[in-house]
């Protein structure tokens, strides 16, 4: 069955540095991968989607890479700020990913940006 692994331990980063979060998956060849941000008591908020034929995608201070050979995605936040502190979730489509499939989520990585 599909398995997604994210570093479940909290990641502490100093303000201004680049935070890098990892998402590894097994038993799967997804057509795309998504990253979400979740704050306590709130629903996840969509950040980025990267397709299997894209190596890298950027949005403002965010950058996502997708290595289908390693079965890994890296999520980077540059010039990190305390407001970036949250849990970040990696998600893959449950099926072939041709359309709006249901998602399988990792457990998330809790990111703490210290002033």
């Amino acid at each position, binding site marked *: 069955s599909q398995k*997604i692994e994210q570093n479940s331990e909290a990641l502490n980063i100093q303000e201004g540095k680049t935070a890098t979060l990892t998402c590894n998956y097994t038993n799967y060849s997804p*057509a*795309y991968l*998504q990253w*979400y941000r979740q704050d306590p*008591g*709130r*629903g*996840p*908020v*969509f*950040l*980025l*989607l990267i*397709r299997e034929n894209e190596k890298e995608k950027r949005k403002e201070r965010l950058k996502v890479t997708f290595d289908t050979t390693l079965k890994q995605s890296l999520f980077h936040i540059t010039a990190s700020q305390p407001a970036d502190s949250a849990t970040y*979730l990696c*998600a893959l*489509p*449950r*099926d072939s*990913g*041709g*359309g*709006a*499939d*249901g*998602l*399988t*989520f*990792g*457990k*998330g990585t809790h990111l703490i940006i210290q002033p």
Partner: protein
Amino acid sequence: DAGVTQSPTHLIKTRGQQVTLRCSPKSGHDTVSWYQQALGQGPQFIFQYYEEEERQRGNFPDRFSGHQFPNYSSELNVNALLLGDSALYLCASSLAVRPYGYTFGSGTRLTVV
């Protein structure tokens, strides 16, 4: 433009009871998915509705059922509640035609006592 609206925000039920949770999708979205999120875990997919039909289903028992109405709003029903059903229930809406970021509601916090 309102996003996804869920009701109620909090709910306390007794073991064995039944519960109905409601969701209004983001304007323009036609697909609704439901997720269960236990504390410290990622959301777990329950099922997805499109054109008033269940299109996909996760590994949840038949006690979990749903419905989608012609206006795309949706309900999640859980029968014979167990203590383990206590969780945050999230509704997400999207467009069916292409992969797209989902819009999530803030969820309904269900506590079973």
